[in-house]
């Protein structure tokens, strides 16, 4: 247990010290997104990696959080700090209700159903123009602020977002090694055996689905206040696939893996600036390659690779 705590503290220190190394600049903005994407990836990982349930519509929950916060704080001049938890509650509630019928499905059917759900949400964003501003989006969303201190620069937003993300990482780590986390993994490995020893698999799956949606909603609200502008295009099918790719690459069931996947997929396009249009090819190829050659994700695959490479040299390499 203490080892895990140390790992977390080391990670948190690295995150909190990063701005000092990068001294503001364009990269700070990207790192803010790494934070948001990490949050989203962890939410999805809890559902996909731990509970073993596929969702191809998570961009929908992200978008719902963003739009709910955005609309409440613009059209209705709500306090953002109230809008955020309310949005999360609404999204969580919707996910909980929809979770019951949707999680009765398995495998491909669940994938298609969540895909359909995500697309319906996206279409609603596009069509309810009076509310959401339609395809051109919603602007004028206020930054978050505490008293006179406003989160209006990349560095300030970085710390805000990452404070929340670190909190979520901690929650997820706690969950993974707890009674609930074990029950989740049990349901994933053998649902019938889990039920036989008393795990209410159905309820558990719905709870995790709702939790995952709440995390995505919080990420969405924070995104809205950071960007001050949201548009439907960010919440479509393509982004759901991007999230899936992050989780798969990092490693299903690995919290730090989700960070790795999120970081990689957020930073990579920045370094391949000229290749912007190629990103969809890269995602597709990455997904396929990972599933074929490194099903455990980078978090397991790279150490395994090292072991294979150094095994031949007769060295006891501690990768």
């Amino acid at each position, binding site marked *: 247990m203490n080892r895990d705590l140390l790992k977390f503290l080391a990670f948190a220190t690295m995150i909190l010290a990063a701005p000092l190394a990068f001294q503001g600049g364009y990269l700070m903005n990207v790192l803010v997104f790494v934070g948001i994407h990490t949050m989203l990836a962890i939410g999805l990982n809890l559902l996909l990696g731990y509970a073993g349930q596929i969702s191809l519509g998570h961009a929908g929950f992200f978008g719902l959080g963003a739009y709910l916060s955005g609309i409440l704080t613009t059209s209705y001049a709500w306090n953002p700090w109230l809008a955020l938890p309310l949005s999360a509650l609404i999204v969580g509630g919707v996910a909980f209700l929809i979770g019951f019928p949707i999680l*009765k499905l398995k495998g491909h059917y669940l994938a*298609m159903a969540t895909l*359909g759900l995500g697309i319906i949400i996206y*279409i609603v964003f596009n069509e309810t123009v009076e509310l959401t501003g339609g395809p051109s989006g919603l602007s004028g969303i206020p930054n978050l602020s505490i008293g006179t201190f406003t989160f209006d620069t990349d560095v300030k937003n970085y710390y805000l977002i990452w404070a929340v993300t670190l909190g979520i990482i901690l929650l997820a780590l706690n969950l993974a090694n707890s009674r609930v986390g074990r029950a989740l993994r049990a349901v994933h490995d053998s649902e019938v055996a889990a039920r036989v020893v008393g795990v209410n698999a159905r309820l558990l799956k719905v709870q995790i689905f709702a939790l995952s949606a709440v995390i995505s909603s919080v990420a969405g609200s924070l995104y809205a206040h950071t960007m001050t502008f949201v548009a439907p295009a960010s919440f479509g099918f393509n982004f759901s696939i991007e999230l899936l790719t992050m989780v798969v690459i990092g490693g299903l069931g690995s919290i730090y893996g989700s960070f790795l996947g999120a970081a990689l997929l957020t930073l990579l396009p920045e370094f391949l600036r000229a290749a912007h249009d*190629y990103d969809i090819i890269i995602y597709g190829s990455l*997904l*396929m390659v990972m*599933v074929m050659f490194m099903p455990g994700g980078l978090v397991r695959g790279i150490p395994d690779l090292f072991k294979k490479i150094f095994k031949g040299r007769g060295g006891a390499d501690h990768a």
Partner: protein
Amino acid sequence: MQFDQLLQYTLSGLSTGAIYALIGIGFSIIYNATGIINFAQGEFVMLGGMLTLLFLETLQLPLWAAIPCAIAASTVAGVLFERLAIRPLRKPTPINLVIITIGGSILIRGLAMLAWGKDTHALPPFSGDEPIAIAGATILPQHLWILAITLIIVSVNRFYFYHTISGKAMRACSYNRRAAGLVGIDVRRMVLFSFMISSAMGAVAGIIVAPLTMTAYDVGVMLGLKGFCAAIIGGMSSGLATVIGGLILGVLESLGAGLISSGYKDAIAFIILLLLLFIRPQGLFGKSESERV
């Protein structure tokens, strides 16, 4: 709401529905032979249209030659997909299969975008575009082509699956793969065939609808999903039930778009999909299965 308006929506709905039916049958064939839902099915539809364009404009072939070439090329793509993506999979769990077929679909889409850009292209209609009047509604010759070709393909399908050895072998695989293998059927070859037939059918669907709706690198996504919806309505049948499913979907979508709102047109298919999956996942015509532990 006048009769001829209703008729108009219904007729165009039937024609789109026929397309959904063809795509849905493609899903069902692969699913029945392998248990896999091929998320990339829609991309073969896209390839049909785009490749025809390639043969037509870049290679300057006449339409009647470009089309078979495009179908053949799509079939080759289907084979490559099965060989490179599906077969080498070490752990074919549902999650892995979903991810790999999604990855494959994205890859194909991306390559198409590289090759042909993001613009939409038009394919010439097969026999001109003089509207035909039927009882107050108008349809285009292309609509008739669609219905006729769909009918032909579904009939050929039925003949193949019920009256040829190879087709019967595939049906055997869909009922019980192990037993089929034990009686000497080459299951892996059947898997390959199923991908070939599905990609060919998908390509045909893409080709016959392209003159009406234009074609572009990303038409596959929506068409694929709606085709899947048709297959679900039909209970994953590779025959009449899915055809009916497609037609129902097409007509409902058309009526919905015309009578309620066209922006939500796409949502109709997905709402139907969700409702079905929630309430009756075996489709309108399927029988519910009991699971053996």
